[in-house]
């Protein structure tokens, strides 16, 4: 059995990669389909995910990583017998909550959250040195890449901060060692 990690965007993929490289997750690269997480929203639209599913003859469990993941994952008929489960791991409302937690700005964000998305709040308030948050993957790499312990702490704190996930919405913290 292999895990297929499908990340909604490149930034989620980078977060998973940082956790993987620093051995912070319950699974290792060897447990992953194709030895890597993928940036893919749907199977039918990702040639790379389809290729990897074609290559591996065994069963596959899917972990979807993203913020809300309101779109349902459609499993193409040819993979229905191979894919044994799909689980959602969410960072609602947006992944930028991790920066807000890291900078201990949850109090400030609470005051404006009705009119401001975490992404916009992060763009206005999060900096690394002189560089402002710009929604780029490079910013995630620079911010958390050398400090995986901070990332782990933020993921754990996110669970405490946002206790309102739905029944089928898991926390990233559940994937941590």
């Amino acid at each position: 059995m292999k895990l297929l990690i499908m990340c909604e965007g490149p930034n989620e993929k980078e977060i998973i990669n940082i956790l993987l490289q620093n051995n912070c997750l319950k699974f290792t690269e060897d447990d992953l389909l194709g030895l890597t997480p993928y940036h893919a929203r749907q199977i039918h639209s990702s040639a790379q995910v389809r290729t990897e599913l074609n290559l591996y003859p065994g069963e596959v469990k899917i972990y979807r990583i993203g913020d809300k993941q309101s779109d349902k994952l459609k499993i193409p008929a040819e993979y229905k017998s191979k894919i044994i489960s799909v689980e959602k791991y969410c960072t609602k409302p947006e992944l930028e909550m991790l920066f807000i937690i890291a900078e201990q700005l949850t109090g400030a964000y609470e005051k404006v959250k009705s009119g401001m998305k975490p992404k916009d709040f992060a763009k206005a308030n999060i900096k690394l040195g002189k560089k402002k948050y710009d929604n780029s993957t490079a910013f995630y790499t620079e911010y958390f890449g050398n400090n995986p312990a901070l990332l782990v702490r933020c993921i754990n704190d996110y669970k405490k901060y946002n206790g309102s996930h739905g029944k089928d919405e898991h926390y990233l913290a559940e994937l941590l060692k």
Partner: protein
Amino acid sequence: MKLLHVKAKHFKNCSENFEIDFVAKSKKTAEDKEYELQKITEGLYTYNTVAFVGKNASGKTTAVELLDACFSILEDFRLESKSYSFDGVELLMDFYYDEYIYRYETILKNADSIGSKAIFTNQKIRRKKYFKSKVKEIYADNSFEDVEIAGELPEDTSKIFFILKKKATRAIYFDSFGKGIDTYRLLFASLKDFHISTDILSNVINIFDENISDLQKLDDHNYRILFCSQEKVVSDKELLYLLSSGTTKGMLLYILVVASLQNGFDLIVDEIENHFHKTLVENMISLYKDKSVNRHQATLIFTTHYCELLDLFNRQDNIFIAKSNEKVYLTNMYRGYAVRPELLKSRQFYNNVFQTAVNYEELMALKKELKK
């Protein structure tokens, strides 16, 4: 250096203005940027994989031979020992190098009556600074400026030498003929030239034949092999009989894949499916699309009859359809056809959307003869 665009006249039996463009033109999604495309510089993307498809004798091999010729000029600044005549070939190449787009034009001539090498005439090198804002006009001819070149070269050496200066492997061409007993010599030469470890060779061998646990070169024609736990010393001819043709060809091709990925040069493969299980071809394509493996912008360029492979492509602009009437010509799937992206490309081939189907009437004519 990255080759972006090639245009040729009078190359083999190509149509006038036979053209291959490697710069991504259609919409680039975030997922495409991750798996399908490589960023050369800001706003300039080329492909991780490029396919040439078409029926037999449609010109697929001609297209990759043209690319092989271009890469020979870019890496050795020479063109020699090819199976075709160079006489009268008009060549135009656009490549990106050091923040500039270079345009190189020449007319080739055979250096001698047997055409063993080319001489470069009417050479012209121009360039323009690359700007992201002008990416849509990178080939616009009027914005190139002449490059001043001071110096003389032998006529069989291209003036691209003055730009790139150093010889370097830019691409390797793997034809469909097979190299016979030379395969093993080439295999070990590749391991040495590209500093590939014997561990990787073991991994590659195991993919193709689990009975072989070790292969070592003793001298130019003799090898030591551990086959079904038995050590044998065999000549290259004996080895060719001992191993399947798929194993022999596959070992060399996969080692070249490794060399290409580790060094960032392109790999051109004619008839990629030849001798291989589909899974092994899918795996090769997957390796070039995975940036954790393809870290140096290598491109896999291949021809195939196997249209199912194209279902592994998320884009259409990296697929060229070859056809021939009196001359051979290429059509880009994105620019030449209005195919809905969500439809399976293989299904479109079977539905003859690209007019590439094998002639049914001819097949039945043969069957009719056989029934007599």
